[in-house]
């Protein structure tokens, strides 16, 4: 869903500033440096993020500019992976293991350090069997007109996007504001800012 197909839901940013003279080469390198990388360990719980090609989330190479640069449009996707364990299933397994330990050791209660040990072992075991939750959000950047559209409306995900964009391109995306529509008429923008909310309740009018 996004710039290649489906309905479009985007947050728009302004990207001011001059592109470096060697921007194609420079961005190719920094996209490679900030591309998505798989977690080094199957038991990693850490959230991982990086750029992928918009066409396929498994394509993380940016050496060929034709796969991410279309005239003046940079088209990418932000991939975010996170492994999370199903909480209810985890608790159920842990319960069984605690009970098994109590039976084996003929104890009524499982001591806290043992329970922690069992919990950590189970977590590693289940993480190894769990696939990450994978989210992919398209990015379309018009480098000529200085806007970028990010295909996600969550504040948290947009924060991740802004940070990675800044790290990759050394430019700051500024969130679009309705006043940008009247940027060429600052007096209109100022007047709008100084308005108060209109109240439609009829008793207010009378």
């Amino acid at each position, binding site marked *: 869903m996004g*710039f*290649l*197909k489906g*309905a*479009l*839901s*985007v*947050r*728009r940013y302004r990207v001011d500033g001059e592109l470096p003279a060697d921007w194609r080469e420079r961005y190719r390198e920094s996209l490679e440096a900030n591309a998505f990388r798989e977690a080094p360990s199957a038991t990693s719980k850490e959230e991982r993020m990086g750029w992928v090609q918009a*066409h396929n989330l498994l394509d993380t190479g940016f050496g060929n500019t034709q796969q991410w640069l*279309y*005239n003046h*449009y940079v*088209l990418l996707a932000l991939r975010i992976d996170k492994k999370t364990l199903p909480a209810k299933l985890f608790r159920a397994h842990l319960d069984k293991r605690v009970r098994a330990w109590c039976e084996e050791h003929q104890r009524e209660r499982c001591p806290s350090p043992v329970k922690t040990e069992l919990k950590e072992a189970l977590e590693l075991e289940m993480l190894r069997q769990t696939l990450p939750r994978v989210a992919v959000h398209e990015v*379309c950047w*018009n480098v000529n*007109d200085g806007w970028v*559209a990010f295909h996600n*409306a969550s504040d948290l995900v947009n924060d991740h996007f802004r940070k990675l964009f800044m790290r990759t391109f050394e430019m700051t995306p500024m*969130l*679009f*504001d*309705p*006043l*940008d*529509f*009247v*940027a060429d*008429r*600052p007096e*209109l*923008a*100022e*007047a*709008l*800012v100084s*308005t*108060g*909310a*209109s*109240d*439609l*309740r*009829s008793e207010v*009018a009378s």
Partner: protein
Amino acid sequence: MTEEMAGAPPHVASEFYLWLWFRSDQGDGELVMDDEAGDVTFWVEDRIAFRPAGDARATAVLTGDNPGTSLEARAALAGGKMLRDLKLALRRGEREYEVVLRGPGIEITAAKLPGLLKGGDPAEILYERAYHYEDLHYVLGCLFRAFAAERTGPAWQETTLPAMRAWVSNAVGRGPDASDDSF
């Protein structure tokens, strides 16, 4: 927006949505913007979300056929609620868009673009869709500028706001049958 200036207060987007709804209801939603977007026709589609003043969360969402003409929608306004989202259809020349305008940032969400290319060269698809996205953003900008000029001029207090209040209170006062003749 200049770097020194704070962003638009949240009521600006809410009133923009209200103005679009009011205009579409009153004048068949046709605006002629001679030297900008040309003739643009717009109408409210099947979703309106309201929020209480001072709260960003939507507390009432009306969906279905013509929610803009419903008694519930006008009653929400009469009760002091503000608009948070508005689903709008826009026609400019041959092109027709559907979009949910969301929140204080006037975000373009769930936009249906009038693309002709359904498959083939991804570059061609991107050019076409990016062109339509920019066109939609441009048209919204033209509408917003028309709203801003009216909102900040004397006509708002003298004409528009009283007309909006009458539009709301008449619909509420007429009761459930009000929706039958609103459009």
